[in-house]
């Protein structure tokens, strides 16, 4: 690097709702897309109180484990679906968010292994001076999760904070709560 100094982060503040929500933000794919899944959850503070002025963003591979991006040498799978890969949802008064997307595929890793299907998540809120980053994994990917290089680096006692919970018997619905602080604090990553 030539060393232009970086611009520091500041909090998103309490008023992000005037500028950042998009009508189609939570829908990474249109709701009626075959196979679409819904991930819902709540953003909670250190006392378990809902955070009503936060924002959740997700970024993920497509169902074939590819990215429509020049730095993925494989590119998108090009199956013609309207898949944006990116989701954005402000939290509601009860701290809740909702993302409608397709299940990501497993991904190749530069070390030759595989990463289990996952979504990268950015969390922004008043009171967070920088975003915090976590990942959402799937509960029905036990085998892939065991081999995942990120999950396996996490303290086993805390891994479940990164794995979504099947919502009832519906295989298209998942819950993923994000706890910013406290006993069951979600694992956050330095990327």
């Amino acid at each position, binding site marked *: 690097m030539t060393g*232009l100094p*970086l611009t*520091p*982060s500041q909090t998103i503040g309490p008023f992000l709702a005037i500028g950042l929500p998009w009508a189609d933000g939570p829908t990474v794919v249109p709701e009626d897309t075959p196979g679409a899944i819904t991930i819902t959850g709540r953003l909670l503070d*250190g006392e378990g109180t809902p955070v009503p002025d936060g924002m959740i963003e997700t970024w993920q591979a497509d169902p074939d484990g590819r990215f429509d991006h020049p730095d993925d040498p494989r590119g998108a799978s090009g199956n013609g679906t309207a898949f944006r890969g990116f989701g954005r949802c402000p939290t509601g008064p009860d701290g809740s968010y909702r993302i409608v997307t397709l299940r990501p595929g497993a991904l190749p890793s530069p070390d030759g292994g595989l990463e289990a299907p996952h979504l990268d998540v950015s969390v922004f809120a008043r009171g967070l*001076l920088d975003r915090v980053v976590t990942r959402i994994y799937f509960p029905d990917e036990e085998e892939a999760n065991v081999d995942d290089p990120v999950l396996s680096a996490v303290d086993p006692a805390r891994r479940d904070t990164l794995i979504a919970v099947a919502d009832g018997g519906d295989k298209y619905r998942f819950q993923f709560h994000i706890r910013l602080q406290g006993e069951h604090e979600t*694992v956050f990553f330095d*990327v």
Partner: protein
Amino acid sequence: MTTHPPSPPAGLILPSYERPRGVHPPLDSPGYRSTALRAPGRPPLLIPQRLTEITGPLLGDGRVAPADADLTTQHAGEPLGERIIVTGRVLDSDGRAIPDTLVEIWQANAAGRYQHVVDNHPAPLDPNFVGVGRCVTDSEGRYRFVTIKPGAYPWRNHPNAWRPAHIHFSLFGRAFTQRLVTQMYFPDDPLFEYDPIFNSIPDPKARQRLISRFDINLTEPDWALGYEWDIVLRGSAATVFEEQPVVRKPVARTQGGQR
């Protein structure tokens, strides 16, 4: 549900991004009281950058209309306040321009009031100003907004707390690692020294990088003043990242007062 693991392409080589150290504010910044119950108590786990981190949404086309960059013409009449031009370049730390990237801004009006239900500062709303703008950087990484200078406003962080005038910025760059939300300030604001959010940045020189520069050459005579502010996102890492053991240390937290 079964997924079909793709075969790893031979020799998958990915870019890697530098890791900011000592640039961003610590999440636990007691002077900013809202951090007390929201800052994670444990340090984040360092992970290598893989495909999900070195890619990111390339948004812009179709999401932004040219008129979105002028916050003074979005309503029936003209907003009150000092009309300004805010422009600059989005770069990475290697000095490369980041073209075609979405820049989103939001701000208070000239009286220091946000068009938001939870802003109860007793200052007037302006029916001709919402305070939201978007644009996409050009081939040289340049963005440009026309807006009005936001006012300072009180907040209840501590007795007689006021935020210096600022514009919120949201940036994507081209990779998940580069995502940045921050605030741009104006030169010579007397409130800097009292603001725990501005001062949460540990390095005083880094704080200065959030302050725009007045430039007479950017003004439009008889019409608007001009400010320039460049934004630098993470560039390439100097060395290839190698996995290191991560020390996890639970941190005891005091559950003090909050707002």
